[in-house]
């Protein structure tokens, strides 16, 4: 069940943060231990050209981010551009060399053999990439992949809340925000509606939706339904929401 996996992932993050507010460093450490990789790095991208390496777990992971930043190529660059994971299962393959001619030898030199780049994204919201590497070639098991994807999702939510100024909580509290209703189509539809209502980015719109749900102690899916059914509107100037008790909303 998805909730068990989400709970386990947050519990692992919590083990590393030990009651303190969870940070990207904790997420990286938990991911490395949880999915059996040798290192992890998080890169946040403010646009397709502006990047910021936020945390790397070791020297090799730092090198990998560095090479991609310097050469403008690599699995992480592609994952961000394409909006899907990019799995370089063996950097010694001709395929890797053809695809990333400058990055591949540099990454091998640094000690990486396989790289798994998982985008931090929710639809059109593109935040960055979680890069995992192994010193040995080969794919992740389906179990490891499932956990890695859950770690990437947890990281994405953390980045969004952090950027929105929602104080990062302890992992124990944070996982409660990892609401299963967040996957309902209405949440994404509501995000789009708030984009139009506030004239803002999808990231900011999603953060507002989440902030509203926490503040009112409601499930994200239920708040989203109110937005989609036009019972709740977000107002740009007042930084408040108008909740109509009437059926009609102006």
């Amino acid at each position, binding site marked *: 069940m998805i909730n068990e996996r989400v709970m386990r992932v947050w519990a692992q993050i919590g083990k590393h943060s030990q009651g303190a507010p969870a940070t990207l460093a904790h997420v990286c450490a938990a991911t490395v231990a949880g999915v059996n990789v040798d290192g992890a790095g998080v890169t946040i991208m403010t646009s397709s050209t502006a990047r910021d390496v936020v945390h790397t777990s070791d020297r090799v992971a730092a090198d990998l981010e560095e090479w991609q930043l310097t050469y403008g190529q690599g699995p992480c660059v592609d994952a961000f551009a394409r909006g899907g*994971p990019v799995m370089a299962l063996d950097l010694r393959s001709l395929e890797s060399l053809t695809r990333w001619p400058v990055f591949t030898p540099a990454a091998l030199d640094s000690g990486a053999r396989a790289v798994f780049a998982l985008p931090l994204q929710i639809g059109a919201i593109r935040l960055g990439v979680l890069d995992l590497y192994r010193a040995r070639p080969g794919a992740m098991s389906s179990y490891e992949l499932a956990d890695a994807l859950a770690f990437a999702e947890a990281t994405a939510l953390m980045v969004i809340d952090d950027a929105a100024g929602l104080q990062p909580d302890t992992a124990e509290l944070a996982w409660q925000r990892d609401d299963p209703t967040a996957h309902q189509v209405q949440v994404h539809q509501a995000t789009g509606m708030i984009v139009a209502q506030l004239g803002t980015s999808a990231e900011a719109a999603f953060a507002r939706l989440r902030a509203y749900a926490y503040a009112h102690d409601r499930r994200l899916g239920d708040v989203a339904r109110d937005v989609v059914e036009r019972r709740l509107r977000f107002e740009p100037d007042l930084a408040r929401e108008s909740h109509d008790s009437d059926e009609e909303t102006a």
Partner: protein
Amino acid sequence: MSERELAEAFVELADTLVDDFDLMDFLHQVTVRCAQVLGVAAAGVLLTDQRGALRVAAASTEQTRLLELLQLQTDEGPCPECFHSGRPVEVADLSTAADRWPRFVAQARESGFASVHALPMRLRTDLIGALNLFGGQPGALDERTIQLGQALADVATIGLLQARAIRHHETLAEQLQTALNSRIIIEQAKGVIAERRRVDMDEAFELLRDSARRRNQRLSELARAVVDGSDALWLTQPAPAAPERAPIPLRRSDGSVG
């Protein structure tokens, strides 16, 4: 359904596959064709999120009720059962299945459905999702219709494979995750359009899809541009005339609808 219609459906889908196509648009076409060719009221494709749950990827109509019914199967319903067993699930009469899936059956019946079938989407040994067929009347689909349905489910699977073969021998994980994220972008774009145009989500999807077809643009790319605000179409231009539901646009490459 005539042999001719059936042949046309497969020709059209096969034709799309040799082109550089948009996976989201393709899966939508498959579900629309399923409804027509198999004579069912609605069809939907669910794909595995590889974390233990199924997610909505496409539906023959974008009616919110249908999307909700499909997404309810994150928890219970014939699709998860089909997905976990790898075998077709047939419920000729939903009223007999209320104990098995109470929430799913209640909502399906409320939406006017009386029967449901789920067919596995399989790639070699991997199960990647399930095709859901909803009937308006009670009754099992006959064997030939099930076979046709399975063939269409396989075509949907081939679409996924084909899309990844086109680009860099992607892994299945890469393709599935990209497809599910594209679906989210479409939902976000529907929201933007629904708000700007004061239309409902179904109309928003029609507007988005028709606009993509008219401009010969990929559905997911236009959706992203709408959410990013880099496509201001929805701000300035009047809404194109809403098309009739009936004839399904066959191809986008010729720029025509219908």
